[in-house]
């Protein structure tokens, strides 16, 4: 490309292979951001990811770092075991909303409360993606899923759970933030949050989590572009964006 300079390309630690995600799926974007942050912080040598049971179960095929697959919901317990043995590594879990906020509730809360020095990348797409679109703890009121054919009814199914807000009161949590990957601006914001969370872990501060509202075109039964609209209108009002907690003691 004569006279031209490449200013954006595929990140170094994102393997050059097609992924299995549906067109327009937020997971793909989040993978890319992780690869970019790992490159920028130069931690590829000591980063360890614990992918979930969920659509991202094959993350090891895409991001070029060491990984250990966890049983559904047990990511933070597995991370606890790893981090306690390898305190100088950057250990993070990657979890969906079913994985993290339903079956993994107890492990999440207690890892957070113990202040394990780990990071959780929490992909909130409001449904169980991998299993075909059942209600998740974060499904919004009225949203139709395969197990709420008439829409989520808070009187029977409860209201959606807000995990950043919920974890914030725990002393062990040091960085909690929520963003999305539905727009260029938010994608950049998400990247910044991931970076902040990893930096916090590098300072050994405690438990950090980035919650990312993420598109699931297949199960929302919307086009990728329509999904971005649903994030704006359906999700952000329920899940306000921003930093929910940040330990102030250290410089950022």
């Amino acid at each position, binding site marked *: 490309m004569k006279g031209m300079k490449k*200013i*954006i390309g*595929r990140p170094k630690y994102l393997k050059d292979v*097609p992924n299995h995600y549906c*067109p*327009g*799926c937020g997971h*793909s974007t989040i993978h890319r951001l992780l690869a970019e942050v790992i490159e920028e912080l130069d931690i590829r040598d000591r980063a360890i990811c614990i992918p979930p049971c969920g659509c991202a179960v094959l993350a090891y095929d895409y991001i070029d770092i060491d990984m250990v697959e966890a049983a559904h919901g047990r990511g933070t317990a597995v991370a606890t075991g790893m981090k306690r043995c390898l305190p100088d590594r950057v250990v993070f879990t990657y979890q969906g909303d079913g994985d993290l906020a339903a079956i993994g509730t107890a492990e999440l809360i207690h890892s957070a409360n113990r202040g394990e020095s780990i990071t959780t990348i929490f992909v909130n797409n409001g449904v169980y993606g991998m299993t075909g679109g059942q209600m998740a703890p974060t499904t919004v009121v009225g949203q139709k899923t395969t197990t709420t054919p008439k829409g989520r009814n808070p009187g029977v199914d409860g209201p959606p759970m807000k995990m950043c807000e919920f974890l914030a009161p725990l002393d062990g949590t040091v960085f909690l933030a929520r963003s999305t990957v539905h727009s260029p601006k938010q994608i950049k914001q998400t990247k910044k949050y991931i970076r902040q969370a990893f930096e916090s872990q590098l300072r050994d501060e405690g438990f950090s989590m980035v919650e990312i509202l993420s598109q699931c075109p297949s199960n929302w039964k919307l086009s*990728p*572009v329509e999904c971005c609209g649903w994030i704006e209108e359906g999700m952000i009002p329920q899940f306000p964006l921003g930093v929910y907690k940040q330990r102030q003691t250290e410089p950022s």
Partner: protein
Amino acid sequence: MKGMIRIKKAMCKSCGLCIEVCPKGCIFVSKKINEKSYFPAEFDKKKEACTGCGLCAVVCPEAIIEVYREKQ
């Protein structure tokens, strides 16, 4: 031409996000199906409108858009 992009069409899933986000309308849906049976996004070179803003690359879930800008 201030900027240009390259799309690895074989890996495009035709999600349309790059098309949606391009402020200059430089990306369109190709008429030629790729191996994965998607109609990939294609860069409209003729338009010469691309500023190399990079928004398409930022939103592309597949990370298959390379963005180039004129050397200053």
